[in-house]
């Protein structure tokens, strides 16, 4: 029985083990500052945006599509939110749906072009992303916009439970929703077949095009949500915010696919991957290592983690 075998469990939770090992290591080196609840609440709270971006990209990835535009969706929505709220004084209850609507629209555009014209999603979302960047620069006049209303910040990072900003719980809640969606709904299965057995899915009545479109819309909406949270976290919007998140999000998505549900993009794996990588960076910062060490760690940990995971699973050939 494969499911209960030790190797399989080791494979599933290998990354968690390595994560705990890192925490132990940093903890031994700096017990006073690293191993504090406040430090962990900082780590958990500040990377909620990255978690949501990662959750956003795994949905189209599961359906076999790349969404490189999500970072620019985030930036655009962040900018739009800040402008509407701080400059035009639009009430928040209106700003939020507008923001999410922008995200959904981007998803529709990505999906429509990719599916109708049958173009590789990589190039479509790359192009759309660059276009959105142009729009962001245009509407924000290339400036950083601050002065966002405190209510938004209140509901993103000021409000805390167990010392952790509420944004973290949003991210975890979303992960739970997506986990449920992927594992326990027919749509999740359709997503999977769209990515891994498109023809089989189609013949079984799955409307492949609609599923892919929906996946793009979901990633667009999640990108928009991340943008709103970004604005709430920083109290501002700047035209480059999302740029930093794209590669880390892909790294976390692929790393996350080596654990919990090995061989598949999965939300809990993504969450763990994000926090694994972030814990390392944070620990190195706390220990005062120079920044290049952060890069060495990040790159090295990423590669080593997947290598070890593959070794554990017996170097199995995987679709990803």
């Amino acid at each position, binding site marked *: 029985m494969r499911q209960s075998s030790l190797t399989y469990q080791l494979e599933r939770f290998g990354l968690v083990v390595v994560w705990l090992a890192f925490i132990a290591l940093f903890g031994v080196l700096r017990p006073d500052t690293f191993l504090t609840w406040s430090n962990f609440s900082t780590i958990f709270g500040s990377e909620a945006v990255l978690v949501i971006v990662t959750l956003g990209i795994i949905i189209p990835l599961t359906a076999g599509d790349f969404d490189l535009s999500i970072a620019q969706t985030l930036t655009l929505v962040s900018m739009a939110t800040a402008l509407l709220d701080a400059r035009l004084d639009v009430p928040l209850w209106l700003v939020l749906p507008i923001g999410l609507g922008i995200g959904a629209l981007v998803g529709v555009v990505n999906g429509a072009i990719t599916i109708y014209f049958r173009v590789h999603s990589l190039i479509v979302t790359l192009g759309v992303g660059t276009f959105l960047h142009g729009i962001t620069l245009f509407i924000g006049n290339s400036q950083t916009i601050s002065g966002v209303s405190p209510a938004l910040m209140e509901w993103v990072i000021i409000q805390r439970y167990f010392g952790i900003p509420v944004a973290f719980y949003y991210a975890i809640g979303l992960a739970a929703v997506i986990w449920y969606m992927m594992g326990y709904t027919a749509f999740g299965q359709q997503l999977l077949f769209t990515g891994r057995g498109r023809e089989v899915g189609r013949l079984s*009545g799955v409307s492949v095009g609609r599923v892919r479109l929906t996946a793009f819309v979901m990633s667009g909406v999640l990108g928009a949500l991340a943008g709103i949270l970004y604005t709430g976290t920083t109290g501002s919007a700047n035209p480059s915010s999302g740029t930093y998140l794209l590669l880390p999000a892909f790294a976390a998505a692929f790393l996350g696919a080596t654990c919990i549900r090995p061989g598949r993009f999965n939300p809990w794996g993504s969450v763990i991957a994000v926090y694994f990588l972030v814990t390392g960076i944070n620990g190195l910062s706390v220990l005062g290592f120079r920044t290049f060490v952060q890069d060495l760690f990040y790159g090295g940990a990423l590669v080593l983690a997947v290598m070890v995971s593959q070794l554990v699973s017996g170097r199995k050939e995987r679709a990803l």
Partner: protein
Amino acid sequence: MPGEVHGLLGSNGSGKSTLIKVLSGFHAPDEGELRIDGRDIALPIPLGRSETHGLAFVHQNLGLLHDATVLENLIAGDHERLRPWWIDWRAEAERARKLFAEHHLDLAPDDIVADLSPVKRAQLAIVRAADRVREHREHGAPGVLVLDEPTPFLPQEDVRDLFAMMRRLTANGVAIIFVSHDIDEVMEVTDRCTVLRDGHVIGTFDTAVTERSALVEAIVGRAVSVDRRVSPLPAAAPAVEVRDLSGEIVEGISLSVQPGEILGLTGLIGSGYDEVPALLAGAQRATAGQLKLGGRSLDVPTLDPADAMAARIVFIPADRQRAGIAPDLSLTENAMLPLIGGRLALNKRRLRKDTGELIRRYSVKASSSEQAASELSGGNQQKLVLGKWLQLRPQLVLLDEPTQGIDVGARQEIYDRLLEVCADGGAVICATSEFEQLEIIAHRVLIFDRGRIQSELKGQDVTKSAIAQACYKAVETHAAE
């Protein structure tokens, strides 16, 4: 032995393809030795080196790259002749045209393989291997041509051509290994044959002095009857009526099936019989056609697979690897996809349990319902696909080559399932190029020619030879024109 055609037989998963892949260097064997032309060859053979020993292959899935052109495929792996640093495409194209002309093939070097019909693809793969063997012989190697089930894609006439080609080659001293599930073919063309079961050699037989039934028994491990298994049905109102169906090849055909009936569709490859199931299932767009089923009337051109499923029509496609199963996904996921519809809360345990039952009921050899489908052998994958669809208790079952690459034993199980559907009052339409299969299970057979129904055989008239005659009569008529 030089100049011998050696058959390799065995049920699904018995290790024929695996043996062949060892020869080609694709797999490394655990142990064993290989002797070609009296020389010991070190195993494993490095990839790409099997040619130096004079081997050439037609693999079970043909080994063609669909995205590439005919010419690119033709020269792929031709390490001996090609200069690595300069490919003269013009000369190669010229050479290819000559080669195709020599074998009377209608292939152009610039065509994209994906645009070719399956027959042409098989022809390309075979001509490629034959060419390679000839080359080896020019270099003094003995030349061994290995054909892993080359015939399922080929119409009867091309099978003849192939056999003729094989004889030409053996006359020149080429040894041929020929894999097939079709025992008649094996009886016809081989000199000796070896039967494998579970990776072991059961025995090697001299074909000329061996009874057909002895071979079957060796393959399956028990005696299998190939008798006709259906009895005539009393006349009844049709359960399914198709009117004026047109697709890419078929043109305005009408047919009907009564409850409990198995209707066979056949013809020469390219005659369009295999298009009908895909059109009726909405898997392929029809240009016209009406389908009447259980009192409902459906417009075929607007039908898509979901509508077909809603009307309790199921379709089992021929292309198992691409359209039948998703190899990466688990058996549960594969088997349960049509059942879950648009549900928002799946009961995983229940789905697993149902899959377990399905596996048992259809005797799929699997270790767990959470296994990846790719880990099953082809025959077991097919049983899983059948189970997946038949659990919907369909009114109409559409089949396209349901037993392609399936061994004799597993075939019988599949027939059993189809007969069960009939017993429940369902209708079955089965498109196949295997006449023997029709003889066993079809109540009625429609023979296609150039997109139209050319003749119909019923009841006791449904025999292998009658079907073959009907098929070739059509060809002769055209030839006479």
